[in-house]
């Protein structure tokens, strides 16, 4: 055996430690900037005023039954979740990923229910106190993050969540307290319910994106699918006089837009992004043309769809804050919740979903195992289009009772952002859509009560949130590996 000669570098540590990551200051710097901005705005520049938040819809009394019911459910849920957590701990492994957030949600419901039981309908918060409180929390968390960074650790997820909540609360109190009145008031219930309403088309749009992109087809045409859905729903419902026919027409129209995308990109291998953009422009042109010729000529016969009213589930709809969100929705709203759950379960817990994800990640592998790649992609794209089409029907059947030019107003693109923000996961896309809907609704609510920021800046809010979200505020998100790359055998 020979001896080692010349410049032999002998590593001092064990090889496992070789891959020690370099220190990343991204998170501490980002959090630090936000904390400082928050401190200056919410703390230093907080007025002496207070902000009042209504917990119950204006014009409705608090329902004691609903509050008690919510209390009972919250206690039971919290108890069960804590037990599950405890048991997981005993078993020596961490709790399943969904348990901590679910427990947090149960606690929030519990607090709200207690407020409801106690008959509290309005909470008034002093801007200065809350502003400084949130500032302290944010600065502390940013500091902790900076302390952890050189040690190679990251802020735990609950820390990030706490930071986000502190910022949100501080921001809300600050901006509401800046209103014109002596004690400016907004209805928190209305704010949240409105946010969900505005988010409906976004959720459908981003689910469409999830279905297409998980199978490897980039769907930029969400905007076109929403708009086509809105148009077809209006015309279909008016002509037949049935909202359900309108819904079906919307799904078919969305699927037709997808059909073009699927055929052109799968069969003719055209760049999917370009096809998507072209489809969006095409749909805008087509609907504008049909609107200004046919619909304007005969609005009564073609563009006066019946309204799809909200369906209220008794008692449950009266639970403070949450009731209206979950249990006082239009049919489209309920369909949204169902779609999120079905797509999530379908993608991650069924045979179909496993194949879809495999096709988006490694089509060749799927092919060698007997999965028909292009057929899977085709049907997923069609299904995505149908879902986005139903989302589009929201515009003409729920929000406004007539079609007007370009009424989707770029929401398809926001849905695309929600899809990325939500990391190509149906639940994530749903939550991201809610955030965008919230920013959108907050903007209009604040404009009404008057705000320290010019209304133009408020109008930018949803888009600023989008930019930060997509720029990777939530960390690195990983798209399906073979997204946008056509699969050609051989």
């Amino acid at each position: 055996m020979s001896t080692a000669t010349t410049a032999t570098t002998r590593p001092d540590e064990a090889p496992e430690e070789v891959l020690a990551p370099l220190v990343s200051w991204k998170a501490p710097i980002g959090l630090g900037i936000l904390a400082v901005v928050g401190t200056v705005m919410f703390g230093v520049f907080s007025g002496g005023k207070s902000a009042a938040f209504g917990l119950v819809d204006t014009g409705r009394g608090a329902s004691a039954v609903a509050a008690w019911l919510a209390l009972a459910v919250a206690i039971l849920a919290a108890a069960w979740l804590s037990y599950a957590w405890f048991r997981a701990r005993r078993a020596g492994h961490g709790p399943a990923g969904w348990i901590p957030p679910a427990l947090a949600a149960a606690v929030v419901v519990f607090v709200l229910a207690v407020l409801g039981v106690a008959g509290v309908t309005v909470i008034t918060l002093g801007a200065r106190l809350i502003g400084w409180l949130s500032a302290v929390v944010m600065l502390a968390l940013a500091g902790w993050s900076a302390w952890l960074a050189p040690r190679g650790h990251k802020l735990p997820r609950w820390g990030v969540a706490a930071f986000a909540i502190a910022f949100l609360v501080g921001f809300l109190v600050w901006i509401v307290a800046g209103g014109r009145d002596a004690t400016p008031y907004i209805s928190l219930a209305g704010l949240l319910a409105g946010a969900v309403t505005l988010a409906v088309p976004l959720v459908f749009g981003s689910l469409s994106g999830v279905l297409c992109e998980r199978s490897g087809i980039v769907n930029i045409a969400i905007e076109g699918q929403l708009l086509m859905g809105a148009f077809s729903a209006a015309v279909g419902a008016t002509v037949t006089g049935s909202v359900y026919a309108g819904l079906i027409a919307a799904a078919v129209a969305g699927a037709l837009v997808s059909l073009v995308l699927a055929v052109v990109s799968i069969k003719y291998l055209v760049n999917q992004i370009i096809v998507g953009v072209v489809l969006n422009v095409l749909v805008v042109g087509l609907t504008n043309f049909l609107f200004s010729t046919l619909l304007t000529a005969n609005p009564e016969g073609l563009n006066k769809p019946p309204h799809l009213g909200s369906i209220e589930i008794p008692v449950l709809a009266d639970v403070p804050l949450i009731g209206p969100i979950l249990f006082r929705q239009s049919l489209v709203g309920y369909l949204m919740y169902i779609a999120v759950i079905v797509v999530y379960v379908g993608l991650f817990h069924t045979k179909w979903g496993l194949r879809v994800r495999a096709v988006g990640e490694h089509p060749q592998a799927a092919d060698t195992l007997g999965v028909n790649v292009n057929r899977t992609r085709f049907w997923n794209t069609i299904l995505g289009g149908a879902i986005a089409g139903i989302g589009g029907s929201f515009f003409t059947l729920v929000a406004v009772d007539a079609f007007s030019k370009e009424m989707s107003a770029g929401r398809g693109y926001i849905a695309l952002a929600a899809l990325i923000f939500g990391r190509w996961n149906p639940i994530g896309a749903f939550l991201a859509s809610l955030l965008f809907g919230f920013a959108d609704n907050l903007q209009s609510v604040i404009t009404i009560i008057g705000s320290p920021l010019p209304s133009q800046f408020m109008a930018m809010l949803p888009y600023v949130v989008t930019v930060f979200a997509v720029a990777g505020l939530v960390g690195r998100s990983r798209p399906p590996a073979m997204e946008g790359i056509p699969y050609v055998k051989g």
Partner: protein
Amino acid sequence: MKLELRGITKRFGALVANDHIDLVVEDSQVHCLLGENGAGKSTLMNVLYGLYEPSEGEILVDDKPVAFRGPSDAMAAGIGMVHQHFMLVPVFTVAENVALGAEATKAAGFLDLDATRAKIRDISKRYGFDVDPDALVEDLPVGVQQRVEIIKALVRDARILILDEPTAVLTPQETDELLEIIGELKASGKSIIFISHKLREVKAVADVITVIRRGKVVGDAPPSAAPADLASMMVGRPVSLTLNKAPAEPKDTTFAVRDLTVAAPNGQRVVDGVTFDIAQGEILAVAGVQGNGQTELTEAILGLYKHASGSVTLDGNELLGRSVKDVLGAGVGFVPEDRSHDGLVGAFTVAENLVLDLYDRAPFARGLGMRPSRVATQAAEKIAEFDIRTPSADVPASTLSGGNQQKVVMARELSRPLRLFIASQPTRGVDVGSIEFLHRRIIAERDNGTPVMIVSTELDEIMELADRIAVLYRGRLMGIVPGGTPRDMLGLMMAGMTAEEAAAHEAPVAAGTGAAGADDDGAHRAASSFGIDVVTDDSDSGDTHG
């Protein structure tokens, strides 16, 4: 299970990839397909696996003709395939990958991954695979990923297993383990088709060897056939398997790397504190399993990485921090590991590719204009000198075969006076005949007095060329050892032992296998009678299967 291919022909347009191939694979037999890259082995197996439809011919399973319209038909007939490039979804768990396509389901299409996990544990236990069903595939070492591929086939009750170049990505130790696994599979009654161009492995594992050249069966050979004979069957003319290069005559040390560290975007140190020198007239070969920092090391020297620290000096000048153009200007010739991606512009002509880094200077340029006549002259010279097989200098480089593309890259990089020559995977995907030629050119450059750095994942190539061998593992240098260091020791270093540890580990092992010494001697005697340098034949594994 008996498998027979009769007169299989596969044409792609005018190209005949398989020309009337007959092949019979008997029950419980390891049948090796030996052939160069591009000989048509993989095409044949893709036909067998239902990925391609044969233009002519028929496939018989247990003497009954079958027609495969897709891989699922082949799998149903009991054929499983482990592809050269693994067909595994990196972000899936082992269980998800195994389940895909043959999912165990509960009611309404819900996945029953527990059933799959149980099957994986069962197979793992039976063959000693040690695979965790819940591990993410991307986190697994390549050798384990390969086992997942084998499990995939076994779960589908494959009775014939096709292994396409299975050792290309493995360390020598992993290769030994694989050969053991093949032995066990054979013992349990599976037939195996083992595709390779590596004589050593084929001889170690085969019951029957079929040699394929240019889409045709050249003939069968027993595993005892002489390597030189097998090689000439593969290539179609006599080849010499050893270079018999003269010993190096190192002169001044002009190239020095000190404490070079490269950080990946995610903060990992992909090259970590690497220090070495290369003298003029010496070849330093960098060995290691793919992905242990070799790519980054060479590219950092070339100046492609911003996050590189330490020092790289050539003739006393610091190269680190300078632009790629400056580095090339300092006299560095660089052959990248992926020629079609980094080494050539596929759509450019051969002539243009031959002056890719020289186009802007005399004699190929005058002021702002280029001089096509000089470019053409250069092309004619280099095509002759390097024996580049091309219809003309004006065809796109992408139309050439891999070996000829590599010759274009090599010709370009060697066409100017060099102060340092770096070649990554200089013969990857190149036919045996061209390998010999390219190796001789590299030796010639060394004898010219240029410091030469070779990066290769092929131990054969390392052994062939190296005057000294540096082994990289996870971005760190495990040591620099002299050329001719035994394979086993290099293998241990490639798996993360330092030179000292590997030496210490080797000694007792050598003593322990003393009992099998007679056998070893036999192997060596046989080897020397072939005139082949097989000093450290994988005789351990040979014993288990021989």
